[in-house]
């Protein structure tokens, strides 16, 4: 990719229209969890699991499973 991306392209790449639930599967269960001087990571946000459970059932601390070998 060249550096010639303008803001429009970047927004288009951002795929704003992906389904929210697919996005939350990845953002709440995937992604690197950092620790240390972290102020807050969603891994600690138990309230989200409780209050949004009806809407976002997949939020679950036990996931994701490891990749297959």
């Amino acid at each position, binding site marked *: *990719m*060249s*550096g010639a*991306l*303008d*803001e429009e*392209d*970047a*927004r288009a*790449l*951002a*795929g*704003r*229209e*992906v*389904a*929210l*639930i*697919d*996005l*939350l*599967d*990845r*953002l*709440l*269960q*995937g*992604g*690197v*969890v*950092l*620790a*240390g*001087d*972290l*102020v*807050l*990571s*969603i*891994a600690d*946000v138990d*309230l*989200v699991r409780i*209050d*949004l459970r*009806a*809407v*976002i*059932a*997949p939020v*679950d601390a*036990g*996931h*994701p*499973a*490891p*990749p*297959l070998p």
Partner: protein
Amino acid sequence: MTESAQRQHMVYAYAVLRPTAEAARAVATLRGVADEQVGLVETGDLAAAVGPVPAQEFEEGALRAGLEELPRLEALARGHHGVVAGLAPLGAVLPLRLATVYRDEDRVRRVLQERRDQFLPLLERLAGHVEWGVKVYTDPTGFSTADAAATADAAGGEEALSPGRAYLAARRRRRRGAEEAWHTAARTAARIAEEAGGLAVGRVAHRPQRGELAQMAGGGTVDGTKHGGGPADAGNPGGGTAGRGKPGGEAAGGSSVVPGGETAGAGKPGGENIANDAYLVPADRAEEFRSRVLAAAEGRPGVRVEVTGPWAPYSFALPPEPAARREPV
């Protein structure tokens, strides 16, 4: 940053990547969760894409409160994803989990240094790969046809039954139909997993999607096989929560497009999500992956398959944890 600027702003971190000139140019075009200009924090051979965000919105209490409101959560998720997706074409990016916030850039640098031995191999592994999502649903529309045929076959033998017995027989049949639909879908899901696994280098099973958001997500119609519409009251083979919510709502209507997603199978939304997997696929096999997965579902009534992506490798940004649970297929 001055002391007072530090108090007004915190640092939202999006992703870990290599500090290349390309990366610097890419972040320069990106704005983040607070519409802030994204930049790089670098330390040696690693960098993090970060942005300054207002402390009053992103300190712990405000963030916790905000994340409980769906519109706020959605805005945050889409803002985060916008940055990660903007960096994904660079080839190797480790997305961070949503809402990773630090007090200042020095702390981000320190974490990069501390975790360098983990990040470098992960970046290496993910370079040149994309993530695809593959979701398999039971398809009530497809099975209503088979159900109708079964009803017709059985009808002759039931003329002798009393209305009550006939009702019970019909109900049993419907229940068997639902079970059969589920098992058929599960078999197809296994076949798809096999096909997909042959092209992928990694697989992560997410929990099947349920609830209101799942209702909004499923839908769209692409080159699916055609099935005659069966009786409208054939029932939802899934029978679970996925069947409730917004039956045939506009959001899931057959004419809607699934952005970034393609479906195969009968073209109607609905049904129960029975598999929700993510696959890590070499970028040069990405299109082959999508077409072969969709082809594996062609001509199979009772099943609908949706492929989403390509995604940045969110689901593979964690080191393998043997203790984690895996969903049965």
